[in-house]
């Protein structure tokens, strides 16, 4: 029986190559989308899911009220770990994981800078990372022990055995390699090339007992069977218990299973997060797959006449309806399987690009049985979804009628199909609108004035001896006419590393907890960055020695402090008094989509991490870099020269939105492609069925354009209906999307009209091929065939 089904299915597919191609390629593209998105979803859902203790691991979070709103954040004081251990017997261990380190490693004549982290020695007992060499319990015990990742060890030591070797770190301290850990998988937040024990940080003076300094992450491992509910109630008040200035600050333990997907907090409560993206993508994938299935349904049922006789005969010789349903469904599953095989090819081709877009390292593990299970599930679901309606439709034919050759009215067959076409184009139009909106929004934010001059501005972190030799380096850069201006700052101009509500000034409301960005710059920051001074002057240490404790404020800060004339006023911050000497125009240091926050630029009395170099305009950048590199080598010979340009970093602020834009574009194109495949098939069928009508019309004097219009009109109406349904949907969705940006475009109707016209034109182009073909055909021939 199945052999018979199979034979007839294959012969039918081969006989109607055009329809087979449309069906299989449509299904393949739809399934490829679904598979790619499933891979992505899987990697997000299993993020940090491999830790054996995952049900007992928590991260300590803060919750406090600012200006009447509850805020939550995960950065904690370093001293917290100690008190958690002391206060709560149900806690097995606490591990601090610091902000991350970027150290220079020297071995023989190799010099490598790499990212790693400083962690408490219990790290390997809490988290599940395999040690290939060394002992988990003791690897991080000594202050000068270091555990390297397998690939990093290979990079330094090549084929030598790294265990017990001495590595020089930051040109000063000698570490002994005590462990080699397997490279961390892609889906973990703990992806480090090396781990250094916390005791080293303590030796270096980077540990403190200050409750006011939120500076590390604290992870808590509960004992088995400990009750998290009862612990939470006690844990809440840990700050108040040990910190006199805790105020309303509370703490809570946030479970590992929620970190990746749910950690968006609004007013103290979880409010979505990446999970929204996961859901959105699942919806999009389902829709694209559904659209491909709709094509299949449309084409199989529209062509039902060709299969009708077979149905009739099978019924006459004794087939039951259920058997026929089985036959047609196995046929569609076969087709889905062919599509599925093709889709794996598409996925393999698309993965590199998709990985780049999604910032992932996804791959198909062909040895993994679960993947195959999932694949066959997709095939079967697609086959069932696509095949069920045609199966019920076809198997219901009355054998008496179909064997007599009674023709079904083409229009009658097409009507339910119309609903499906409308559904497809509604989705396509929504995606076109999304593409346009996201692109416009990015363009709008890119065109926004940044408030400073990003071009010809280079920066470099103050590595090794750069801080020590800064004055010499600066002098040389200026003397040799390489730079027009040099300034050191606390962070790059595109990042704000520090903020506080603790600043004080005359007349400040004691309850005011407005956050100010805190930035440090030593000299001539306005000149170097190309900012605009509104009042007062730039830092000028050469003329005014007191500028070490001078301060520049931006417009937003003046507004927040409510000062009429800020120049000369005093601001107290971090135990020092700073005098305002200038007011600068607001400039964008954080998100170009948000309002500029209040900002204080404090003078040379602060701390510094970055050297900023402004090159002469119109100078040769290549030779500038060469000359700069020579000077850096002179003053910082042990460290590599790793410069960056501010305009590149600024452009990177748009990377996420650009990715979203690219995704929307890709999805829109795919949806349109699949929808058009279906439309093409339907219009072919329509044209075939109306051959006689077209012949008669032509003999009676209809023009070719008249007939093309006749055949296209119906589909145009459908696209029009789709437009009417899509517009409010897209309006709502896009409004929601844009709400996350403060600096945003407004939705206007013309944008939707463009999308609608675009869809209409694409649809018209698809249909016209068949319509023109039918219209120019010789009517005599089509009528004679009757």
């Amino acid at each position, binding site marked *: 029986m199945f052999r018979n089904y199979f034979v007839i299915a294959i012969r039918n597919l081969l006989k109607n190559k055009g329809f087979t191609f449309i069906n299989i390629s449509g299904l393949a593209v739809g399934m490829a989308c679904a598979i790619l998105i499933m891979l992505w979803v899987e990697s997000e859902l299993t993020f940090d899911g491999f830790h054996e203790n995952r049900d007992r691991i928590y991260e300590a979070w803060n919750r406090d009220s600012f200006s009447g709103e509850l805020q939550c954040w995960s950065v904690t004081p370093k001293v917290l770990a100690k008190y958690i251990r002391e206060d709560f017997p149900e806690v097995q261990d606490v591990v601090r994981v610091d902000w991350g380190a970027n150290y220079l490693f020297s071995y023989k004549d190799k010099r490598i800078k790499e990212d790693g982290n400083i962690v408490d020695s219990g790290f390997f007992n809490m988290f599940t990372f395999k040690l290939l060499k060394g002992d988990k319990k003791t690897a991080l015990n000594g202050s000068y022990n270091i555990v390297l990742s397998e690939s990093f060890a290979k990079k330094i030591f090549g084929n030598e055995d790294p265990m017990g070797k001495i590595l020089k770190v930051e040109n000063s301290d000698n570490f002994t390699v005590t462990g080699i850990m397997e490279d961390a998988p892609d889906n973990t937040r703990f992806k480090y090339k090396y781990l250094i024990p916390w005791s080293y940080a303590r030796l270096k003076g980077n540990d403190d007992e200050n409750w006011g300094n939120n500076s590390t992450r604290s992870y808590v491992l509960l004992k088995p069977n400990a009750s998290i509910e009862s612990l939470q109630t006690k844990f809440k008040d840990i700050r108040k218990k040990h910190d006199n200035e805790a105020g309303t600050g509370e703490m809570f333990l946030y479970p590992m299973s929620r970190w990746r997907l749910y950690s968006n907090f609004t007013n103290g409560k979880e409010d979505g997060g990446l999970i929204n993206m996961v859901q959105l993508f699942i919806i999009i994938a389902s829709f694209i797959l559904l659209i491909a299935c709709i094509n299949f349904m449309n084409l199989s049922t529209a062509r039902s006449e060709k299969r009708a006789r077979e149905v009739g005969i099978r019924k006459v010789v*004794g087939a039951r309806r259920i058997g026929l349903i089985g036959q047609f469904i196995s046929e569609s599953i076969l087709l889905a399987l062919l599509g599925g095989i093709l889709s794996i090819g598409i996925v393999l081709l698309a993965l590199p690009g998709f990985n780049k877009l999604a910032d992932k390292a996804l791959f198909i593990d062909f040895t993994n049985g679960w993947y195959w299970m999932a694949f066959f599930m997709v095939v079967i679901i697609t086959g069932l979804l696509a095949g069920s309606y045609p199966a019920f439709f076809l198997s219901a034919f009355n054998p008496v009628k179909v064997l007599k050759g009674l023709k079904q009215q083409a229009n009658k067959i097409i009507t339910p199909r119309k609903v499906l076409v409308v559904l497809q184009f509604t989705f396509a139009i929504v995606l076109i609108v999304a593409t346009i909106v996201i692109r416009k929004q990015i363009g709008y934010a890119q065109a926004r004035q940044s408030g400073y001059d990003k071009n010809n501005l280079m920066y470099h972190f103050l590595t090794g001896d750069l801080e020590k030799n800064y004055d010499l380096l600066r002098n040389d850069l200026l003397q040799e006419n390489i730079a027009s201006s040099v300034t050191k700052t606390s962070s790059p101009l595109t990042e704000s590393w520090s903020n506080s509500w603790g600043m004080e000034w005359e007349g400040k409301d004691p309850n005011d907890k407005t956050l100010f960005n805190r930035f440090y710059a030593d000299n001539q920051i306005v000149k170097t960055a190309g900012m605009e001074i509104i009042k007062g002057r730039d830092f000028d240490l050469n003329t005014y020695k007191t500028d070490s404790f001078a301060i520049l404020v931006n417009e937003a800060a003046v507004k927040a402090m409510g000062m009429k004339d800020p120049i000369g006023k005093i601001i107290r911050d971090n135990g020092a008094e700073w005098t305002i000497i200038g007011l600068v125009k607001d400039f964008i240091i954080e998100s170009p989509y948000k309002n500029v926050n209040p900002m204080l630029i404090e003078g040379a009395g602060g701390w510094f991490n970055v050297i900023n170099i402004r090159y002469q305009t119109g100078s040769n950048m290549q030779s500038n870099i060469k000359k700069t590199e020579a000077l850096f080598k002179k003053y910082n010979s042990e460290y590599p020269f790793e410069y960056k340009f501010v305009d590149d970093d600024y452009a990177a602020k748009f990377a996420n939105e650009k990715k979203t834009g690219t995704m929307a574009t890709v999805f829109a194109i795919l949806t349109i492609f699949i929808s058009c495949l279906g439309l093409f098939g339907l219009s072919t069928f329509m044209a075939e069925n109306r051959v006689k009508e077209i012949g008669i019309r032509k003999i009676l004097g209809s023009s070719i354009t008249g007939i093309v219009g006749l055949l296209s009109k119906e589909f145009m109406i459908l696209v029009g209906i789709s437009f009417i349904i899509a517009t409010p949907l897209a309006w709502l969705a896009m409004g929601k999307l844009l709400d996350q940006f403060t600096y945003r475009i407004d939705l206007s109707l013309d944008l939707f009209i463009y999308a609608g016209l675009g869809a209409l034109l694409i649809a018209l182009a698809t249909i016209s091929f068949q319509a023109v073909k039918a219209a120019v055909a010789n009517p005599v021939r089509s009528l004679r065939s009757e």
Partner: protein
Amino acid sequence: MIKITNLEKVYRTEEVETVALNKLSLEVKEGEFVSVMGPSGCGKSTLLNILGLLDDPDKGSFIFNEVEVAGFNERKRADMRKHNIGFVFQSFNLIDELTVFENVELPLIYTGVKSAERKEKVEKVLDKMQIMHRRNHYPQQLSGGQQQRVAVARAVVNNPKLILADEPTGNLDSSNGNEVMQLLTELNEQGTTIIMVTHSEHDSRYSHRIIRMLDGQTVTENILV
């Protein structure tokens, strides 16, 4: 074998109501060869469809093999049909995507005959119809007469008790037509009951009895033998 009493069938569309069978009564004995004749629209095809259990009557009784089958559901009708009845149509109605062999094999598949036995039976019947040499051809590659012989082969492969033929020579020239009528006659002589709808007086003379219909009723019966 067949006893029909007061059979009624009405077709309704949105506007028109057509009475296809009007209190029709009829009896056919086992081994008979009966022709049904009458003008277009007299209900003879409807009668054939009901006799073939493809259609259900609205009213009346239909006893087939001593079983009342009027009111049978789809499953029971399909079951009764595939074991007892073979069909031959005017337009052959072969499946284009299947070879001669596969077309003839189809009824055996639905009655659950094992593969080896199917092969044997199909070959035997193809041999009998003298189209064995065409077993691997597709219907379009055959002449009309050959196609109808394949259709007859398909109708008899299951050894049905009853063959229903709907104008079996309508699409054939006279020599091919005669060949098919000869085949039917032979089958009848071997014991198969045959009911044939036809417009052809010539063909009807092969049968034992002619039933003439008009407006859904039988009007006359001619006994030929």
